[in-house]
């Protein structure tokens, strides 16, 4: 029974990683850049939601909407101010800028909210499900997180395969120059990608803090790095890969904590990743691209 409990906990935290990883993977797939500030957008989303519920006394659902809107705007602003002027420069320049944005967001949050941690009140009011006479408890957060994760996955897949904008995104991701020649507005498409990625970050932030209530300016940093790893693990640039990578990472992390050692869980998780990447360098679902000369 404990096995099932750990599995469910692992899937739950993995689903949060997966939603964050989607943001990394989409931005990488389309803009070919690693947005290291993504983890901090999560933190901003969580703070916005916290402020709306705690200081304005609004219901949880409103706080999520406000957080999503705020993070979408933030994502577009970051892209426009920090990344767009650097388009066409070596990718290293953009990477360093992204790290700069990450520090900026963390320190701005520290100035505005202070660095004392806040206890995030869960947005989920659902009663936990108890199965097998108390042997297995599934909290409301777990159910909601997994449901939202699946919904986002389905929604994004439909979006990229059915809509014009989604198709434009795929086209830009495949060949930016050719897409531009075909009349696709590349800049707009990239901004749209940032908007979607940041909106997902807001949702991830609220879900993350509902499961793990400690909210502080560095809250997004560690989950951000894990989610980035999950994206690489699943095959960066691939949407189903990010989902799979996130959930597997969550499960491996929880199992290594539960059955091997709580102390070395990180070492174990990252060793597994190294081994898998040695065998499959493009990640689980990544495309092996042959460069033709």
């Amino acid at each position, binding site marked *: 029974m404990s096995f099932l409990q750990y599995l469910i906990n692992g899937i739950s935290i993995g689903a949060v990683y997966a939603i964050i990883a989607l943001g990394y993977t989409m931005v990488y797939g389309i803009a070919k850049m690693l947005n290291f500030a993504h983890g901090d957008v999560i933190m901003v989303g969580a703070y916005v939601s916290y402020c709306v519920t705690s200081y304005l006394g609004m219901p949880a659902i409103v706080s999520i909407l406000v957080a999503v809107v705020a993070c979408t705007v933030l994502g577009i*602003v970051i892209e*426009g101010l920090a990344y767009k002027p650097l388009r066409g420069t070596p990718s290293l320049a953009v990477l360093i800028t992204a790290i700069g944005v990450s520090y900026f967001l963390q320190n701005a949050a520290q100035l505005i909210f202070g660095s004392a941690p806040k*206890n995030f*009140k869960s947005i989920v009011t659902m009663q936990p499900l108890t199965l097998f006479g108390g042997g297995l408890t599934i*909290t409301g957060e777990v159910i909601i997180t997994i449901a939202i994760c699946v919904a986002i996955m389905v929604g994004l897949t439909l979006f990229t395969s059915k809509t014009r904008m989604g198709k434009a995104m795929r086209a830009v991701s495949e060949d930016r120059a050719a897409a531009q020649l075909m009349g696709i507005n590349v800049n707009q498409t990239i901004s749209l990608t940032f908007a979607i990625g940041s909106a997902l970050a807001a949702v991830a932030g609220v879900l993350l803090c509902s499961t793990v209530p*400690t909210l502080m300016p560095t809250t997004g940093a*560690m989950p951000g790095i894990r989610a980035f790893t999950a994206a690489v693990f699943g095959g960066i640039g691939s949407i189903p890969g990010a989902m799979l990578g996130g959930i597997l990472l969550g499960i491996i992390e929880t199992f290594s904590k539960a059955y091997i050692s*709580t102390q070395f869980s*990180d070492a174990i998780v990252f060793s597994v990743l190294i081994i898998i990447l040695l065998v499959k360098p493009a990640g689980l679902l990544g495309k092996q691209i042959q460069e033709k000369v």
Partner: protein
Amino acid sequence: MKKLFAFVLAVMMVMSMLAGCGASESAPAADAPVAEAGAIKLGMCGPLTGGAAVYGTAVQAGMEIAVEEINAKGGLQFALNCQDDEHDTEKAANAYNTLKDWGMQIMAGPVTTAPSNVVAGECANDQIFMLTPSASGASVIEYGDNIFQICFTDPNQGTASADYMATHDLGTTIGVIYDSSDVYSSGIFDKFMTQAEANGLNVACEASFTGDNKSDLTTQVTQCKEAGCDVVFLPFYATEAAQVLTYADKIGYKPVFFGCDGMDGILTVEGFDPALAEGLMLLTPFSADAEDEATKSFVAKFQEKTGIVPNQFAADAYDVIYALAQACENAGVTADMSATDINAKLIEQFTSMTFDGLTGAGMTWAATGEVSKTPMAVVIENGVYVGVE
């Protein structure tokens, strides 16, 4: 589009400037010592901001109250300068140097153990007397003969917790969760395990976490639940404890949670529902509901100053100032003496005197700097500490 961005950028800059103003207003004591000329200069450093800020600000407020009281009496005068170290060793070294430049004669800090390991080394080198209110690591007092503690050392807390569990009927199966990357937490854990074995306690589950993965403690709580633990020992700080209590409540796991002095302050974590801490036990030398006159007066002043009920850190800090005052009076220390002379006189006083404070009567110090006083257990009932036998 460019204009819009420029505007947004301008707004963000203005906001961060405003936020900056707010932050500097909330830390007035950084450059504004409480008293002026003719006063003995006391330095303190602690986490006034950051994850451990509950402790630093409590200590600061406790010390300020004591200094105001002593200065108001006339006679001996103290000037207090509090610096922020954010519970960070490097910043603690900077804070120490700032205090030294200011002309500090006695170090009444730091608040937490990791920074104290740095500052104690410096104090031993510079021969500046150091009395820490709350840095309970055993290593802190090993740096020199002039380093003293007013709180219990970590090993003592571990031993006392195991003894308390053995003599009181809290439960039969014990689980422990600790932070293996933190000296405070692992120090208590080691001694607790040794003493638990000696007392024949049944420790069924040992789970740990590190600074890097403390954002998710659900597995550790589940492990204790699976092992059927009805007492869970949590020797770490309130921020993580809030996480443990929240998750345990969600999955309907209700053992007796037992903490040490780091747990103190859990009721003041912003956004934490105090109802979750109901029934939480902790070992502390101070309880705000005590009936004696000194405690009552201190609690009233503290509440007036900060709006919250003082925790053990605040009381320890208050005692630090009074212990220093007693020692300075006995030894005839004056403001024009050098830090080294004061150091020699205070060492002599502390190893021989007996001090009655809020956190215990008849405190004495060993030459190692370790204090001798009795801990007592409190339980949280209806959002306040209540002493238990």
